[in-house]
């Protein structure tokens, strides 16, 4: 359990050897595709065949710089950022308000409404994708950021409300009662006490929502038509369609689009892991 526990064992413990071998194999299984993608972006198409695993003989920086200096790469990331940010913001606002009501206000039909909302946990957005498309069209939101954002928020509500409600419920009720006696309104309490106290859970919900939105493909695919609005998962598919066999360019493009995710993950790994797994467990 402690740092010293394992090295302190006999030096040639066969169990330890197997353990290291096994971990090493799994690590290779995970890392090789990623490294091959990163390095492949620096090779020429021909070298991908002749030198699949090694470092590039000459580093073809143009593969990367060509993409970095093209408008489409930045446009795609920007679109993803806008969609994901609005999705997170709206989810946090709408879900935390509802969760507050379910946690702190006793009213007739409360549990019924809550189970109504948590029905959203039972099925994915894909089941209703065609009627959803028709609905978004009829609202005039087709081919707009909000045509993607609003359905994303709606389908993320169930999980978010459950997570937030559980946390809000654990905040002491006495505080609310005291505040109400002092003439504080529910909203003011929510805004100035509940939300500031709930930063950890808001961060968790925000992380889950952001990652899902940033990576989402089906909803944008169905709702968006103009390339200037495409988030990166759509953009990268278009790029691949365009450069079908020029794998060196596609690999460079994949690497660059994954870069923000990987950087963010390295910087905030604890929060992201905790957020994604905690969300899963508590949901």
């Amino acid at each position, binding site marked *: 359990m402690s740092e010293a526990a394992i090295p302190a064992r006999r030096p040639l413990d066969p169990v330890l050897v197997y353990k290291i071998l096994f971990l090493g194999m799994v690590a290779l299984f995970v890392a090789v595709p990623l490294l091959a993608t990163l390095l492949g972006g620096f090779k020429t198409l021909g070298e991908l065949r002749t030198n699949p695993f090694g470092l590039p003989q000459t580093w073809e920086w143009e593969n990367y710089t060509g993409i970095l200096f093209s408008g489409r790469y930045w446009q795609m990331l920007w679109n993803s950022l806008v969609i994901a940010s609005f999705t997170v913001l709206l989810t946090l606002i709408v879900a935390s308000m509802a969760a507050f009501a379910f946690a702190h206000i006793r009213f007739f039909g409360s549990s019924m409404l809550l189970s109504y909302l948590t029905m959203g946990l039972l099925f994915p957005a894909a089941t209703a994708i065609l009627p959803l*498309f028709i609905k978004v069209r009829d609202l005039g939101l087709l*081919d707009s950021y909000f045509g993607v954002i609003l359905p994303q928020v709606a389908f993320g509500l169930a999980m978010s409300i459950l997570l937030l409600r559980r946390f809000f419920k654990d905040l002491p009720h006495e505080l609310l009662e005291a505040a109400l006696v002092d003439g504080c309104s529910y909203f003011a309490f929510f805004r100035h006490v509940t939300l500031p106290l709930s930063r950890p859970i808001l961060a968790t919900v925000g992380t889950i929502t952001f990652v899902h939105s940033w990576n989402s493909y089906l909803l944008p695919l169905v709702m968006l038509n103009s390339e200037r609005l495409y988030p990166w998962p759509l953009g990268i598919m278009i790029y691949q369609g365009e450069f079908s066999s020029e794998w060196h360019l596609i690999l460079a493009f994949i690497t660059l689009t994954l870069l923000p995710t990987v950087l963010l993950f390295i910087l905030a790994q604890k929060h992201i892991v905790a957020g994604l797994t905690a969300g899963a467990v508590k949901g």
Partner: protein
Amino acid sequence: MRFLTKLALAAAGLTLTLGTASAQTTVRWLHLEQNPAQVKIWEEVVRRFEARNAGVKVEMQFLENEAYKAKLPTVLQSRDRPHILYSWAGGVLKAQIEAGVLEDITTGVGDYKNKLSAGAVEAFTINGKLYGLPYNVSQVGFMYNKDLFAKAAIDASAIKSWDDLLAAVKTLKAAGITPIAVGGQDKWPLHFYWTHLAVRLGGKPAFEAALKGQNGGFEGETFLKAGELMKQLVDLEPFQTGFLGFKNQQALGYFGDGKAAMNLAISHHSATQRALAADKKGITEDKLGWIDFPMPAGGKGKPSDTLGGVNGWIITKGAPKEAVEFVKFFISDEVQRDLAKQNFIIPTFKGAEAALSAAFMQNVARNIAASQYHQNFYDQDLGPSVGRVVNDATAEIAGGSMTPKQAAKAIQDAFKQGN
């Protein structure tokens, strides 16, 4: 509350910046052209058009062929749809007209249509109204690599019958050459085999009878036989390894790289294979040959019948009138000749075909001119749903997961279900 207001304002601001177009008219044009050399000419056309029409801007947008077909049904439902769209005419066009998303451009085009090939214009005329203008016609046939044929000692001009083709495939295989490259993942390159066999076997009468549900419809003898003959070819394993995972572009690149002897192509792919080859040169003009689709024994169609496409531009409902003007400009004598000179298209502007410089395309232009029955691609002609099933089913014949009989039944079932 302040938070919400801010959000609402931000949202409103966002939609505003996205929604406001500049004061001038913008024509949005969605195209599928992947060949950079050709796109360059198109961009030049746009510049010239914009120079002549102050206040009009033409915005080009590109989608790859398969992505376009998958996206089109949703694109059409959007209010912000492009004004000018690519079309293969046929049943898909009819469905779009019935849906009321296309503009009737009969008056906008006026007499201009008389300057274009009547047959091609006919494809875009439904119930006496004109919905689009054609800019290119094409024929399906085998492109072949003369070097590889020479290596296997095959005389391409002797390939007249289906059995000749099968024999050539065997010879090529024996010589260690991949006989045919095909983009099986896109499916439609495979449906050419089935369709063209049906055209050869039954001619126009068989197709028209099937449309009326006579002679067993698409389960009838002609179509069953087409599947069986296709199966004969498939059983020889004539395609490159992994052909079901190749997109058409990849297959064209494969052919262009000289790795396969033949490709059942649309005539203008002769230019595309160059752009998609690894060296960007592909099979050069002098090494590239054409074989008319062979005639199976007992075929009732005429040898001069052709399978091919008519490609044009349709105008969506509510498009500014400048969109029609642009399409007319795009299909003007000058532009058509420019494109024909480099053998990118078989032009529809009467007389422009004289500019074709390659014997390959001149030959195709003659074939189409001489054809009494030019059958449009089934996957377009039979409408959006049935057409896709034809593609699915023929790809399954090629993959060995459906028998010709099952494939014919699947197509007939889809036909009965309608759209």
